[in-house]
């Protein structure tokens, strides 16, 4: 079993919930609206809220797994319940999923920052700075990331409240009507698409071995999913009230566009850069957590004793993935692919492990790692 940052890392269930909320919310909320507003129009925000259901199912499955195998993370559980080859495949597929998350999240941030705010700076510089911080966070271990999240996530939460507060004078609540948007089937489809973000909570399976109360993992994960998806929905609702559903569908980052329309007054014009900087902070922490999960999974799948050999290739991959694809259309396309396929994977993996566990029960003493 590879060393996961610090073997002595311990995270409390509250920290775990914040971490999961951060993973669910931090990168997806910026662009989610542009994809789903074309489908469910004014009900995009409601669809996002309903999309939490997928995440809650994954959280329940993961919670059940952790209760059965306390003190183990996903690769260890896979090793225990699956045949060796299948277990390696599960770990590597999980690593691939995390790498996809890493790439898509970084790319979204680079585009959101680079084009409107830092055109004179090379995107490579941005990618290098972001990847360095992400790798540094991952090297410190999940406990450090969880603690830092406890500092930055409340600030991000506050920024959403501020955004909502500042939007009051210029918002049009009527733009949220009709409440079911284009219709119930479209609303259902939207919920299915946005469940891709809720089901990102599966990344938490890489850290559950560090939980101080494994029995409460499922509940913490569920809270994280609920908070994350509610925030995402709130941002989308604000964006819809400010831009209208067509306006949301036209831009790539409705959240940033919404922030552009509000301002604290004369002193700071164009304050969206401040909000984006705050969101960038939680985005970096999410990426660090995902990076950590990726290194742990790869190292475990390959039977490495430490995560160090995985770091350099993954940093390079992270930099490359944050620079490609180069066009906005292709980025949106990759986002659509992500939304279409990943929820099924996130549901299938814990379900497979639970099924395997039921079919191949292991002795009770074998379930506990030393």
């Amino acid at each position, binding site marked *: 079993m590879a060393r996961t940052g610090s073997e002595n890392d311990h995270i409390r269930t509250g920290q775990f919930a914040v971490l999961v909320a951060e993973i669910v919310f931090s990168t997806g909320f910026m662009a989610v609206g542009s994809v789903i507003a074309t489908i469910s129009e004014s009900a995009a925000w409601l669809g996002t809220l309903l999309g939490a259901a997928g995440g809650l199912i994954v959280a329940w499955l993961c919670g059940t797994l952790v209760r059965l195998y306390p003190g183990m993370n996903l690769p260890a559980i896979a090793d225990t319940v699956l045949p060796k080859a299948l277990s390696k495949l599960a770990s590597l597929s999980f690593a691939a999923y995390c790498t996809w998350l890493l790439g898509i999240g970084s790319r979204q941030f680079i585009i959101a920052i680079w084009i409107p705010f*830092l055109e004179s*700076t090379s995107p490579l510089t941005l990618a290098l*700075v972001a990847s360095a911080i992400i790798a540094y*966070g991952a090297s*410190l271990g999940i*406990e*450090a990331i969880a603690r830092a999240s406890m500092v930055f996530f409340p600030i991000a939460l506050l920024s959403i409240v501020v955004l909502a507060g500042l939007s009051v004078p210029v918002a049009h609540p009527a733009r949220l009507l009709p409440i079911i948007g284009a219709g119930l089937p479209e609303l259902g489809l939207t919920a299915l698409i946005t469940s891709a973000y809720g089901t990102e909570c599966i990344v938490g399976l890489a850290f559950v071995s560090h939980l101080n109360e494994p029995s409460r993992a499922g509940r913490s994960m569920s809270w994280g999913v609920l908070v994350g998806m509610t925030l995402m929905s709130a941002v989308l609702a604000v964006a819809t009230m400010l831009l209208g559903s067509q306006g949301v569908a036209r831009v790539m980052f409705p959240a940033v566009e919404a922030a552009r329309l509000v301002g604290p007054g004369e002193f700071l014009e164009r304050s969206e*850069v401040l909000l984006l*900087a705050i969101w960038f902070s939680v985005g970096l*922490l999410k990426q660090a957590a995902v990076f950590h999960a990726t290194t742990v999974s790869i190292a475990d799948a390959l039977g490495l004793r430490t995560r160090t050999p995985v770091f350099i290739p993954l940093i390079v991959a992270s930099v490359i993935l944050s620079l490609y694809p180069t066009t906005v259309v292709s980025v949106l396309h990759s986002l659509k692919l992500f939304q279409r396929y990943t929820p099924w994977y996130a549901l299938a993996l814990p379900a497979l492990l639970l099924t395997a566990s039921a079919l191949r029960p292991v002795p009770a003493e074998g379930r506990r790692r030393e």
Partner: protein
Amino acid sequence: MSLLRKLMVLGRGRRGADGKRSRRSEETSRGSGLGEREIPARIDSIEAEIKSLFGERNSDVIMRRVDLWTCPEVHGLLFYIEGLTDRATINAFGLEALMHGERGPVTSPLPRDPKLLVELIISHLLPAGQVSAVDDLNKVVEKVLTGEAALFIQDTRQAILFEAKGWEHRTVGEPSTEKTLRGPRESFTEVLRTNTALVRRRLKTPDLRFDGTRVGVRSKTDVVVVYIEGITDPQLVEEVKMRIASIDTDIAGDSGIIEEFIEDSPASPFPQMQYTERPDRFCAGISEGLVGIIVDTSPFALMAPANLPTFFQSAEDFYDRFPFAGTLRSLRYVAGLLALTFPAFYVAIATHHQEMLPTSLALAIAGSHLSVPFPTIVEALLMELALELIRESAVRMPDPVGQTMGFVGALLLGDAAVSAGLVSPIMVIVVAVTGLASFSIPHYSVSLAVRLLRFPLLLLASWTGLFGLTAGLVAIVLHLSGLTSLGVPYLQPLLHTGDLFKDVLWRAPVFKHRLRPGFPRPQDRVRQGSSNRQWARDDQDKEEGADGENRVRE
């Protein structure tokens, strides 16, 4: 050949059969034990041996031959180091008592048995407080080097050690680095016993422990671990003692050296131990369950575990009334954040995000920058560097000159740089505000960390604007999140929202501090009873009762 090397060679220092020094003997020579060495019988031999250890030309090594007045045929040798001993004590309790006694003969004849003779001298001829007989010459030398005096008696093969410590030292004065307007004005000195007495005077409990040890093969510095039995977590105490015991160095002349040896992450710019020269602050920390370390020859005592908020607390916080003390504490956090980020924030906005500013301000900044040939980042780095140079030179100057140097240097340099068109006036303002803010951080070591980290933040801000600054801040918080002090997380109190406004960001009234802080895991968390200000509650109850009765009457 130095004295201790000679001691090692003479004392033991074995070589293996192959002629190489074994690992064991290497450890012995660097470690504590020098082995035992018998004291010669003859005074001449003793004198010769001491001379061979200390060399012929050590003018402060005093060896004075004495004949006991009770029995002139008993020869002795008084051995001490001038400067480490008190001359009056040596004269009164050593020479005069031995050579010019006014009492009648002790016993006649003196006993022939060496042991009895030594006991007789101790009980009748040496009126000193702490006296002991030793038969190991190495131990005698070790004790004499700490300020005791030794009396060798011919043919006894023993030395009588008596307390004669007395060296020049600074008296207890005002703290120079932790000044307060209100509160005690005493500070630690370089003398260990003075410092322990200052602590003992404030904590008059028998549970207070001064657990002593020595550090440094050559310096043999006395180090005392201070804690309160029943409050301090014993695991913390053991951890500190274990870390101190593992120090293997020649010289440990200050608490700063000990700190670097025992802290969790020496590479971090942030201190993981509090240092203080104020006994009141030290005692407050000890009574909260921290472990203290007092080092002889150092006027700064250490306390651990530490965390980030402790470095934003001032001793004065608890002497001023809480509304002001709390506000000032919050202000210090703002100052810390300003000192860290203000120049980087300015550079980010001026370089990449001008659209954020109102047009008039953006024009003012652009106008002031017109005559400056450098980009904003170069301007900022130049001014920051100049500020650091002024600060560093002012610290090295004598006090009055240093202060003048600071003010005049900053004013002249800023004015001249603006007149020469090297920097913009706004940049001077930014750097001045940053400098002031960094002076508001009560702990110099944290202020240093902030000053150091300002530079990478500046560079990040110039490359990638506010996003670079954010990335830098995330990296700093991640670093702080991973940092521990004696295994206790560095950000712990900041993450407990319940305590944030009690004694972290704000200071609640003292009578509300019923429990000790949880981070040092004190054994006894309750520090105040619940009866504080009961009289106020009683009065309120009476008034409410009277109001109720009046209402009933009405």
